[in-house]
């Protein structure tokens, strides 16, 4: 009996043993903190003299009344809704340009892709200088046309958009690569058939290329949205969320609360919101994927 028993359970044991180290590590730094975040958001901030106490949903009611939270959340939505569609549209345009047999193709591709491999911190440093009043590149260009000097990053009306422009520049090349891969998988026979039947470029793009790229667009969109919530490195360098939180984003606000104001229990509460947003994006993605017709 024993050998049979062993044989039957060997797969289970081996499988578990193989995945266990990685699963443990992922749990420790993903699942456990999600739970402990939820837990800590229900407690007050402990100090040396006063231990943390259970306060129920008090942090959440504070959050609902926190104007900065709403400001930051609005900022993040604007930020996502500008960076995502623009960088995707530019990425698709780049991919369509590069997908043709043009001179210097690999050089142009490299130019598009290079910002992707650079650290956000380095990119932020360079762009910070562009936006510098008077000496910066933007003011110099405006100066040529007789414009006044602007404090681009110091002005609450423009600071968020300055970040948006930079992020579009940095991310488009990354998304282009996925479109390029998808375009190369389209059969040239389809294109020829379209050509024979008299479809123009625009008609063919609208009716064939774009719909067939839909899975890629979905993948890229989810990636871009998630990025817009989790990448805030540039804020540390360029604006620190300012002026007056005009360019602050949710994760940066969490970072500020936790490591500048040392209010970790409110930071935990904010993190719960961020995790919820990411969870919603995940669910939407799955619903769309489920609904999507499988072509092949």
């Amino acid at each position, binding site marked *: 009996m024993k050998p049979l028993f062993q044989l039957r359970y060997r*797969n*289970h*044991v*081996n*499988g*578990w043993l*193989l*995945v266990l*180290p*990685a*699963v443990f*590590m*992922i749990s*420790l*730094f*993903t*699942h*456990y*903190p*999600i739970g*402990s*975040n939820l837990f*800590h958001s229900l407690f007050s901030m402990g100090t040396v003299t006063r231990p943390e106490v259970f306060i129920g949903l008090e942090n959440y009611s504070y959050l609902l009344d926190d104007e900065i939270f709403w400001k930051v959340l609005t900022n993040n939505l604007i930020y996502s809704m500008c960076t995502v569609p623009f960088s995707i549209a530019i990425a698709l*345009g780049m991919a369509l*340009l*590069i997908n043709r047999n*043009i001179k210097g193709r*690999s*050089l*142009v591709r490299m*130019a598009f892709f290079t910002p992707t*491999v*650079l*650290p*956000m*911190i*380095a990119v932020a*440093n*360079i762009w910070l*200088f562009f936006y510098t009043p008077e*000496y*910066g590149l933007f003011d110099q260009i405006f100066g040529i046309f007789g414009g006044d000097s602007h404090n681009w990053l110091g002005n609450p009306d423009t600071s968020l958009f300055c970040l948006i422009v930079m992020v579009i*520049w940095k991310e488009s090349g990354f998304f282009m*690569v*996925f479109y390029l*891969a998808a375009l190369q998988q389209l059969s040239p026979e389809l294109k020829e058939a379209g050509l024979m039947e008299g479809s123009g470029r625009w008609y063919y793009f609208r009716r064939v290329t774009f719909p067939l790229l839909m899975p890629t667009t979905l*993948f890229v969109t989810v990636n871009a949205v*998630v990025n817009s*919530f*989790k990448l805030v490195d540039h804020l*540390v*360098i360029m604006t620190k969320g300012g002026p007056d939180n005009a360019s602050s984003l949710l994760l940066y606000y*969490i970072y500020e609360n*936790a*490591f500048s104001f040392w209010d*970790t229990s409110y*930071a935990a509460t904010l*993190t719960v919101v961020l995790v919820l947003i990411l*969870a919603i*994006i995940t669910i939407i993605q799955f619903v769309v994927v489920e609904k999507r017709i499988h072509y092949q």
Partner: protein
Amino acid sequence: MKFREFDAEKFIVTTGAWMLGGIWLLPLVFAFWSAFHPAEFSTNFELFAPLTIDNFVRAWSYAPFPRYLLNTFVLVTLILAAQFVLCTLAAYGFARFDFFGKNVVFALVLLQLMIMPEVLLVENYRTISSMGLLDTIPAIGLPYMASAFGIFLLRQSFKSIPKELVEAAQVEGVSAIGILWKVYIPLAKSTYIAYGLVSVSYHWNNFLWPLVVTSSVNSRPLTVGLAIFGAPESGVDWSIITAATVMTMSPLLVAFILFQRQFVQSFMHSGIK
């Protein structure tokens, strides 16, 4: 002279692509210009402005860049090595063994694709701190060592390996670990390269989490070092900051230019699901 209309179109497309490419490179060109010229020329584009490496020399002497570089190098190597081991084992488990609760566990693993460790930085900081690891290089790396992305990619690649190869090895009496080592890993080489490039560039560039858990020169990676160096309150010249910036990004940039094809293909490869 055939298809003249098509040629005109091609010309427009080519010019458009080149112009857009030029615009895209402009910020970098500027960074290099400013890094290699004296401060008075950093906003003053004169073709024959004198070249200098003085900015680099000064940046190098103002801050412990060699140490930062070493830290980043150790960090990236450590993470990659750990990721290869952990992800290979887990991907092998998911790809080849049927075990109780496999699908649920796999779904839980994939959660990390959406909710990355840096999002949970408050609690992860608490964890690292309770381990007594604050301000060490392993502290920066630990949350990333088991990567859902790596497990996913390798699992895909393992699953695409023909069954006959595995069965042939089994018939010859190769053990489960032997099959992993002799069949799966060699055949997934391109996935390892792709994942390796993506991982290295991610962790070379990563900033927020290292910023939070490091507090001294002993563990700070390049990105954090650069941020502290370039902070406005440090009062350093622009040209020197750009020189430091160029220094920070140049190892990756050189690697990218040398292995451009592999880079682009790796990123492509990692996106196809």
